């Protein structure tokens, strides 16, 4: 009880003296604040992408393509007969798809618009997980109409305003906006497969088949069946696997940069705190010695100094997180992933905040512990004589 009382008294004494040391204290807070801000900012980019790629339903949506290139109607038949395919009104839930590149010239000064087009059998669009129309309407087969993903609308807002997009020597009208909740998949344009085949003169071929399975558990049997098909060269992947691959490199770079830079910056901030805390202890060695002589024991001294460092670090952490939330939270931005422009929203997740505050706490302990130990250990008599 006595120890607690002593600790509280010393802490109070210490905090009250902070006002006199305002400049040094704010340098410490600033150092920690910058580290936490940068840490949270980079994490928000990563989480913005990662969060959207983990969506329900992608583990039972399978994408079949061929190592030989294009597929035709016989391949679609083979898929339709495969085991594990979900059916609705006895129709297999499968959709043929194809891809095209939509390069928009003179999109911005010195910038091409690098977009991709997904062509899909319009009547089967429900196969795509979480697909919904958020604005306007679906494109119609037989018309040169396109839909934009929600991300694509962010990147190319000018095309929604009734402007037509020239592609393959035709003019395409944007009629609506769709969403599936995926950063990469919603940054595309969507057209009807038949119309696409017409425009690209690709005949009746396509590049893949999207398949909805009865359950994720049906995947391995389906895959084995498809790979055993002669002359198909089937490559079978779940959409979850594909999403994982697309974002992977990007995330690796971000994680690496965040890791290296955070460690370096944290080290810098800790050095600064150590410097200031040591100077702080040294300049008050006389006062501390008097307190020790008055009967305060070692632990309260240690606690008072250490808690000051921790408190300053947490203050820096809280300011850093708060500023990150204000400046970056929910910010819509775009970048290049896998060669295409992708729009996403920076996400500051509770776990990121928690880790950031933990980081601040750790930095505070690292910056305060050794100076606190020195303060607690200093020989009372010698310090009194000097002070």
């Amino acid at each position, binding site marked *: 009880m006595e120890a607690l009382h002593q600790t509280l008294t010393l802490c109070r004494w210490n905090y009250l003296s902070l006002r006199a040391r305002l400049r040094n204290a704010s340098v410490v807070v600033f150092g920690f604040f910058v580290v936490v801000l940068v840490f949270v900012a980079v994490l928000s980019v990563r989480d913005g992408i990662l969060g959207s790629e983990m969506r329900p339903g992608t583990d039972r949506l399978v994408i079949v393509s061929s190592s030989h290139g294009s597929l035709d109607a016989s391949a679609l038949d083979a898929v339709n007969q495969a085991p594990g395919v979900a059916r609705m009104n006895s129709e297999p839930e499968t959709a043929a798809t194809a891809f095209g590149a939509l390069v928009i010239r003179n999109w911005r000064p010195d910038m091409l618009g*690098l977009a991709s087009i997904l062509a899909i059998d319009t009547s089967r669009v429900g196969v795509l997980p979480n697909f919904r129309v958020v604005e306007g309407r679906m494109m119609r087969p037989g018309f040169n109409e396109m839909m934009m993903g929600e991300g694509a609308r962010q990147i190319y807002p000018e095309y929604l305003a009734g402007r037509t997009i020239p592609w393959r020597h035709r003019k395409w009208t944007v009629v609506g906006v769709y969403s599936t909740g995926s950063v990469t998949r919603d940054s595309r344009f969507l057209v009807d497969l038949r119309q696409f085949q017409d425009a690209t003169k690709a005949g009746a071929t396509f590049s893949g088949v999207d398949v909805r399975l009865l359950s994720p558990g049906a995947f391995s049997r389906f895959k084995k069946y498809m790979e055993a098909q002669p002359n198909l060269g089937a490559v079978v992947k779940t959409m979850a696997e594909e999403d994982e691959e697309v974002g992977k490199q990007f995330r690796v770079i971000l994680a690496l940069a965040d890791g290296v830079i955070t460690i370096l910056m944290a080290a810098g901030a800790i050095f600064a705190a150590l410097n200031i805390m040591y100077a702080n202890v040294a300049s008050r060695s006389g006062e501390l010695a008097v307190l020790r002589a008055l009967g305060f024991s070692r632990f309260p001294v240690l606690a008072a100094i250490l808690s000051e460092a921790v408190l300053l670090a947490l203050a820096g952490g809280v300011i850093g997180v708060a500023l990150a939330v204000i400046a970056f939270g929910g910010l819509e931005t775009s970048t290049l992933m896998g060669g295409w422009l992708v729009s996403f929203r920076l996400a500051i997740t509770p776990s990121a905040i928690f880790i950031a505050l933990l980081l601040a706490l750790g930095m505070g302990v690292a910056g305060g512990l050794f100076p606190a130990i020195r303060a607690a250990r200093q020989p009372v008599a010698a310090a009194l004589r000097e002070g």
Partner: protein
Amino acid sequence: MTDSALVFAGFRRHKMRTLFTVLSVTVAFAIFLVLATLYNGFAGLVNYGRAQRLDVWSDGFGKLPVHYAAKIASIDGIRAVAYQISIFGHFRAPGNDVSVVGVPFAQYMAVYPELSVTDTERRAMLADRRCAIAGAPLAKKMAWKIGDTIPVAGGPPQKNGGTTWHFRLCGIFRSTLPDSFMQNLVAHYEYLNDGMADASARDQVDQIVVMTGNARNVSRVARTIERKFANAQPTAMALPEGELYLSVVKSFGDVGAIVTWVGLAVFLSMLLVTGNAMSNSVRERLSEFALLRALGFSRRRLAWQVMRESGWIVGVGAGLGLVLGWRLCLMMAPSVENVLPFFVVNPQAVAIAVLLAAFFSILTAIVPAQRITALPVADTLRRI
């Protein structure tokens, strides 16, 4: 006692402080170098796209027929046209991956003037259809020597049923391009094409590369190429490399901005930390400086001493920081290379760092030095 000895005596008195201050500077410069290298990684992409060059692809993501190249070559204002097809295999053991690029050799070298081989190598290459040249880093990695026969296993099936393709190493090419552009084994297109068992895979190319005579014509040539194949199957997409790579860099956009802001924040905070440490240290020693003044040291001499102190701290810190940053970049390179092939520390960044260090050391010394110059000697001494 010399002035330098005085400076070092000052350092020794607060060993911890000196150490931590130096380390803060180390950290700042390490971060600077890592971020500058990251930035270069983006910027390098722009420089790579030669203003005169343009790339032609099928815009359905497939391959193009090789005869497109001849049709493109007949367009006005074109200096050279090359094309390439890639096959993938491994050397000796799976995992020891090799990508082989089949090209029309003479045209390929004309389109990529960045690549260089000796005249002997060039002649040897043109004389033998099984010849191939390897990028210097690839040859080093695989321990290939000129004259070696190189079996690349696990490629596409050949007419004779085998999947192992044999090449003879006739040259090793060098380039100013970074490593990841140099990991190819460049072979003859005809040799690969003629060897393919699958007839539908023959006479196809992944990409056509065009060198125009004048950078001003690039856009016009690109449009002409696209018009030429507008009604063909597949249609072609022609993009000037300069435009494409600049666009790629700009498209990374906000990520680049974040990098810049981080750099700025780190630098400012380090400046603050070092400046603060310096001014603390001077303030503690004000009475000593006053004493030195009383002993006859001039104002200027003492100000110089503070400058020297900060010069040593920043100089040693920056030196260590650049070494550390360079090691970190080497460590990060393998995981970053796929996206940023130009993730290489460049001398310019180091030069800028040195200039910054000089600037930084002067800036941190100015306030304490002024304080000493303006010191009221008698007053200060009285307070000891």
